[in-house]
C-alpha cells in the first residue's frame, strides 16, 4: 500500500506514496517551496500521470533535488507501493 524512495541528503528527496486513498493529494515540504513548490508538484503530477495513478497521497521532503530527481524517486515510490499491495 505504501512505498518510499530517496534519501535525506543534499540534492536528493524523500518521497512517500500511499495508494490506499481516494483522489490525489500532494504535500511538498521544502525550504524552497515558495520558489519551486509549483514545479516540484508538477514533477510529481507528471509521474503519477505517466504511471496512470488516479488515487495517491504523496509527501515530498525535499533537500534541494532537481525535478528529474523528484520524478525518479516518485516513480520508484509508486512502484514500491504497488509491489506492497497498493492498487489503482
Amino acid at each position, binding site marked *: 500500500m505504501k512505498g518510499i*524512495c*530517496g534519501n535525506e541528503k*543534499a*540534492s*536528493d528527496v524523500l518521497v512517500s506514496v500511499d495508494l490506499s486513498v481516494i483522489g490525489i493529494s500532494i504535500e511538498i515540504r521544502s525550504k524552497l517551496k515558495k520558489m519551486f513548490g509549483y514545479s516540484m508538484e508538477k514533477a510529481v503530477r507528471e509521474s503519477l500521470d505517466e504511471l496512470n495513478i488516479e488515487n495517491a497521497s504523496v509527501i515530498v521532503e525535499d533537500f534541494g*533535488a*532537481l*525535478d*528529474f*530527481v523528484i*520524478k*525518479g*524517486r516518485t*516513480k*520508484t515510490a509508486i*512502484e*514500491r507501493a504497488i509491489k506492497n499491495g497498493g492498487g489503482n
Partner: protein
Amino acid sequence: MKKLRRTMLFAPANNPKLLFNTPIYEPDCIIFDLEDAIKIDEKDAARNLLAEALKVVDYGNCEVFARINPLRTPTNDKAPFGELDVRTLVPAGLRRMRLPMCETVEHIEELSILLDELEEKHGIEKRSVKIQASLETVLGVENAREIAACSDRITSISFGSEDYTKSLGAVRTKEGSEIFFARTQIVVAAALAGVDAIDTVWADLGDLEGFKKEVRSTINLGFVGKSCVHPSQVKVVHEMMTPSMEEVEKSLKIVKAAKEANIENGGVMQIDGKMIDIPIIAKAQKIVSLAKGAGLIK
C-alpha cells in the same frame, strides 16, 4: 572523426549529484553504474533515477554509458535486473551500455535481440544502440575474439581484472603479471575486430605513481582507454594519452608528405633524413586522429 574513449569514468547511478555533476570532470565517457555500486534493494531506484536523468540532462561531449546488470547468473539462469535495466533505459535515451560478466557470443546475441525489439517498438534507429562487452572471467577472456567480432553493436570490449583474477584463482598485484595474458588477448581481439579496447580500473587512489605506471602499460599494450573510478584519474590519463604538439606537428608533416607522394598504400619516402613507410604513416595518422579528437587541432 573517431570518438575518443581515453577515459570511462564510473559514477553510481543512484547518486543525484553525480548524475548531473560528472561531466564537469570532462571524461571522454561517463559510465553510470547500476551493477556493483548499487545495493540489491536500490536497483529499482537507481534505474528510474538514471532514466529520468537521461531524458533531461545535457551531457555535452561526454559519451554516456550505463553498466547494466548481467542478463544471466553465473549458472546461466535469467538474472533479475539486467533486462529491466535495458527495457527502462533504452526508451529513456540510453544508446551505449556495458554488459558485465560477458562470457560468450550468446550473451551478446541475447542482448542484441532485446535491443532489436526495443528499437522497433520505440521507433529508435535500427542497430543504433551499441554494446561494450566487459570481459571479466576466464571464459570471457578466452572467447574475446569471437565476442569482439560477433555483432555490429559491439563498439568496444573492456577488461575487468578483479573478477578475472578471482575466476582464475590468481592474486591481483600492482605489478600485474597475472593479468598480462588477458590484457594482451583483449587488445589483440579488439584490433582484429576493429573495435576499441578499454583497460581495467586502478583502485588504489593513494598510489599515483603506481597508477601512472599502469596507464603507461595500458598505452604500450595498445588499449585506447582506461576505466576510471575517481575524477582525479581522468586528468592523468588524458595527459598521458594525448600526444604532445611536437608529436602532432611531426605526424601532420608525415601524413601530408605521404599523401602528396601518394604512398599511403605502399612505398617509402624520406622526411628529414628518416625513412617513412606504411607502419609509420599509420601511426602518424593515429596521432593526428587522436589530436583532432582531443581538440588540439581542427
